[in-house]
C-alpha cells in the first residue's frame, strides 16, 4: 500500500498537539500540515507546513471560540487546503472540537479533502462535560463532520477523565488523550503504510469505514515481553474505547492490524486473533500484520470494529427526535437514557452511537450522500425484523467467572482487592502452593 499517499491535516491548536504527539512517536517523514485561524498558534506550531485560514475574515485575530468564524475562515482559504490534499488517497483530519477553529473549520476542511478524492478520516476530541457551551459546539460540529467525512472517530475528554482519578494534573490528562489518539493514528497509518507481512487492502478499510462511522469503535494497544500477544488481547478486551470489550462482543466486522519488529512471530498473530475471535464469534475478521524494525520487542495492535447496525438503529429510533433537530446536551442525555445504553451522556460511547442527523438549517451543507439514507432504511428494517440486540453482550458476561477461589469466613464481605487480587483468598492458594 505504499502508493497510498496518506496525509495528516491538523485543524486548530488541539489538532496540532495531537499531530505533534504522532510525529514524536513516528519520526519518519509524515506528510502533515497545520491549518489554523490564529497566526499566534501557527507561529509556535511544531508542524512545519502551516496553512493560515481566514486572514481576510478574522484579520489575524483567530476564531475566538466562534465556530461560525472558523467555518467562514476555512471557506475563505479552501484553495490552500485543496492544494495540500490534492492527490492524496487518504487524509486524516485531526481536530479538537469545541473551540472556534476546530468545530467550525474541521467539517469544511474534511469536505474539501473528500472532494479532492481522498478517503477522509476524522480524529477528534470532544470537551469535558463541564464545558457546556463547547460541548454543544462539538456536538453540532460532529454532526457536520459525519456528513462531510468518511469516518469520524471521536473521543470525549470526559471519557479519558473517567480513566483517571481526581488527583490527576490536567496537563497529564490532555497529554494522555493526545497520546491515545496519536497511538491510534499511528496504528492506522502503520496499517496502511508499512510493508505488510499480511497486507491489508486499502479497499478493506475503505469498505469498513465508509458511511459507517456511527457504529465504529477503535482502539490501539501495545505490549512487550514474552507474553505480549496475550497481553495485547487482554488490553483490547478491556479497552475503555471499545466499551471494555462490549464493542468487540457485538461487532459485525473487526479489523485487526498487528505491527511488530523483526521478532514478530506468526504464532503470536494467530494467538491474538484467536483470542479475539473467541469473544466475537459472529464477526468477520480482517487481519493485517506489518513489520517495522524499530518495533523489535514490541507488539502494536490496532483494532477497528463496526457494530451490527440493529443496535445503532435502536438507539436512534428510540429517541423519537426529528431529523433537523440539533441535539442539545439535555436532549442527548434523554436519548442515552431511553436507549438504555450508556451511563454518561457525553462519553465517547454516545458520540460513537450518535445518529447521523442531517442539519438542514445550514444552507452551506451539501446534502448527505444517498447511500447513507439507504443504510438508515436498512437499519430500521433490520430493527423491525428482530431485536436480539444484547446477544453479544450476554456472551461477554458469561466469561466473568472468577468465584472459584475460596474466601471462607469472608465469603459475604466486601472484596479485598489490591492490584487485581483478592487478598481475602488464602495466600497459599494464590501462590499455588500445594499442600499434600
Amino acid at each position, binding site marked *: 500500500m505504499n502508493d497510498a499517499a496518506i496525509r495528516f491535516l491538523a485543524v486548530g491548536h488541539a489538532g496540532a498537539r495531537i499531530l505533534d504527539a504522532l510525529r514524536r512517536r513516528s519520526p519518519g517523514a509524515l506528510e502533515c500540515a497545520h491549518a489554523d485561524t490564529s497566526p499566534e498558534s501557527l507561529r509556535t506550531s511544531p508542524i512545519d507546513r502551516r496553512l493560515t485560514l481566514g486572514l481576510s475574515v478574522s484579520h489575524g485575530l483567530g476564531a475566538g471560540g466562534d465556530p461560525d468564524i472558523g467555518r467562514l475562515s476555512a471557506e475563505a482559504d479552501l484553495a490552500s487546503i485543496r492544494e495540500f490534499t490534492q492527490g492524496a488517497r487518504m487524509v486524516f483530519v485531526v481536530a479538537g472540537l469545541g473551540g472556534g477553529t476546530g468545530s467550525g473549520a474541521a467539517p469544511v476542511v474534511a469536505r474539501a479533502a473528500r472532494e479532492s478524492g481522498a478517503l477522509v478520516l476524522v480524529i477528534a476530541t470532544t470537551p469535558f462535560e463541564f464545558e457546556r457551551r463547547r460541548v454543544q459546539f462539538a456536538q453540532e460540529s460532529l454532526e457536520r463532520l459525519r456528513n462531510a467525512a468518511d469516518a469520524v472517530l471521536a473521543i470525549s475528554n470526559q471519557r479519558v477523565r473517567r480513566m483517571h482519578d481526581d488527583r490527576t494534573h490536567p496537563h497529564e490528562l490532555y497529554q494522555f488523550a493526545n497520546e491515545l489518539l496519536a497511538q491510534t493514528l499511528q496504528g492506522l497509518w502503520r496499517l496502511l503504510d508499512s510493508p505488510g507481512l499480511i497486507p491489508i487492502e486499502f479497499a478493506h478499510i475503505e469498505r469498513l469505514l465508509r458511511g459507517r462511522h456511527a457504529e465504529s469503535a477503535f482502539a490501539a494497544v501495545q505490549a512487550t515481553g514474552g507474553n505480549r500477544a496475550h497481553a495485547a488481547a487482554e488490553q483490547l478486551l478491556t479497552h475503555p474505547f471499545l466499551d471494555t470489550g462490549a464493542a468487540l462482543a457485538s461487532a459485525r466486522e473487526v479489523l485487526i492490524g498487528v505491527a511488530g519488529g523483526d521478532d514478530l512471530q506468526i504464532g503470536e498473530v494467530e494467538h491474538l486473533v484467536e483470542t479475539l475471535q473467541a469473544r466475537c464469534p459472529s464477526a468477520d475478521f480482517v487481519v493485517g500484520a506489518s513489520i517495522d524494525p524499530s518495533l523489535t520487542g514490541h507488539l502494536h495492535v490496532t483494532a477497528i470494529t463496526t457494530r451490527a447496525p440493529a443496535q445503532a438503529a435502536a438507539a436512534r429510533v428510540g429517541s423519537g427526535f426529528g431529523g433537523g433537530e440539533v441535539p442539545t446536551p439535555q436532549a442527548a442525555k434523554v436519548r442515552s437514557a431511553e436507549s438504555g445504553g450508556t451511563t454518561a451522556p457525553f462519553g465517547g460511547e454516545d458520540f460513537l452511537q450518535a445518529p447521523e442527523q442531517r442539519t438542514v438549517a445550514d444552507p452551506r451543507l451539501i446534502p448527505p450522500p444517498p447511500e447513507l439514507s439507504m443504510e438508515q432504511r436498512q437499519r430500521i428494517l433490520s430493527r423491525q425484523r428482530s431485536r436480539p440486540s444484547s446477544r453479544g453482550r450476554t456472551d461477554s458476561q458469561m466469561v466473568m467467572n472468577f468465584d472459584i477461589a475460596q*474466601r471462607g*469466613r*469472608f465469603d459475604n*464481605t466486601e472484596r*479485598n482487592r*489490591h492490584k487485581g487480587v483478592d487478598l481475602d483468598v*488464602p495466600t*497459599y492458594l494464590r501462590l499455588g502452593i500445594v*499442600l499434600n
Partner: protein
Amino acid sequence: MSKASPILVGLEIGTSKICAAIGEETERGEFTLLGIGQARSHGVRKGEVVDREKAQEDVRSALGNAEEQAQVTIRNLFLGVTGRHIEGFNNVGMHPVASDDRLVTAQDVADAAENAKAITLPAEHTILHTIRQRICVDGVEVADNPAGRLGRKVEAHVHVIHGNALRIQNSMQLVQSLSIEVNQPVFNGLANAQAVLTPEDKENGALVIDIGGGATEFVLQQGQAIRQSGVFAIGGDHVSNDIALGLKISMGMAERLKIRHGSAVVGAGSRGQSVPLGENDVGIPSREISLEQLHRIMSVRLQELFELVAERCAEGCLLDEARAGVFLSGGSSLIPGIDTLAQRIFRLPVTRATCRNIAGNSATLAHPEFATAIGIARYGGMRLRNRPRQRFSLRDVFPFLR
C-alpha cells in the same frame, strides 16, 4: 468518681475484641492508665462493623468493664477507626508571600498548610488527620516556625489521612447510641504509634505495624511527622481462615491451632512433625496435622502482609528513615517467629512493641493487644493539651463532620 484532670477514654472496636482504655494525663503529658475493659467482638469483620446490634452489646460491656476497673463514669471518648477505606498520602501546599517586604507571617504558614488540604478526595471521603511534616521557605527547609524570615513562597509538606465519611460516622453513631459523646475519631494506626514509641524512637524514625484481628495498620513516624500510613484489611482472622481452608478444619480449631502451635517461619524443627488436632465432639481422637504445612500457610500469609507494607513504604525510600526499626503490635504480633520474618523482609531491627512511657499495671501494658486503645486515649490527651497552641502538635485542623 470525679477526678481533677480530665479523664481520657480510648475505644477500639476491633475485629476480635473491643477494648476500652481509661487514663489520665498530667499537665506535662505524663499518662497514667487507670483501667482497661475488653469484650469479645462479634459484629466486626476486617475492622468494620457488620452487625450493629452485636457490636453495640460488646461495646457496652467493654466500656462497663473499664468503668468498673477505673472507678469512673465515661461520658465522652475518642474513637479509633480503621478499615481498608482509610488511606494516607503526602501532599504539599504552597502559599506565596503576599506582603511587599517578603516577610513570612504566621498567616502565610497557616495558609500554606490550608492549601495542602485542598485536595480532591475520593467521593464521600473526609480528612481524618492532617499532620504537618515540614515547612519550607523558597524550597529550603526551616525550623518549625518560619515567621519573620524573608522569602517568596512558603511550602507546607503534610501527611493527610482520609477515610470514607459514612463508614466512620457509622461507628461513631454506634457509640453515640449508647449516650456517649465521641470527641473525635482517631486513626488506629496513628494512635498505636503514640502508645508504643518513645520520644527517642520517634526521633530516629520508626515503622509501627499493628496486626489486629481483621486489619493491619501501619504508620511510619519520624519526629512529630508521619511519613507514611495506611491500612490493609488483613489480620489474624485471615491467618486462621487460611489455616481452616487449607487444612480443612473449623475456624475455631484453626484459631486454637494457630495459638498453640503456630509459627510465622517454617523452621527446620517443624519438618516431618505433626500435632494431633485434639478430640472432636464425641471424644474420638481425630487426625494429625502436619506442622510444616501449618507453618507454611501462616508464613506465606504474613510474609505477603509485610511485603505489602514494605512496598508502600518503599515509595520514596521511606524505609531508610525508620532507623529505630520496625515495631510489631497487635494480637498477631504474638505469633512466634514473626519478628524473624519481619526482619527478613524489612531488613531493619524488629521489636515486639509494648506500651511505653505510660504508668499503670505493667502486666496490662506489656500486652500488645491493648496498645491501640491506650494509644487512642493518649492521643486524645495530646489533642486536648495542644489545642491552644497547635503549632507543635500532631493536629487536626478540620473539625470532623461538624
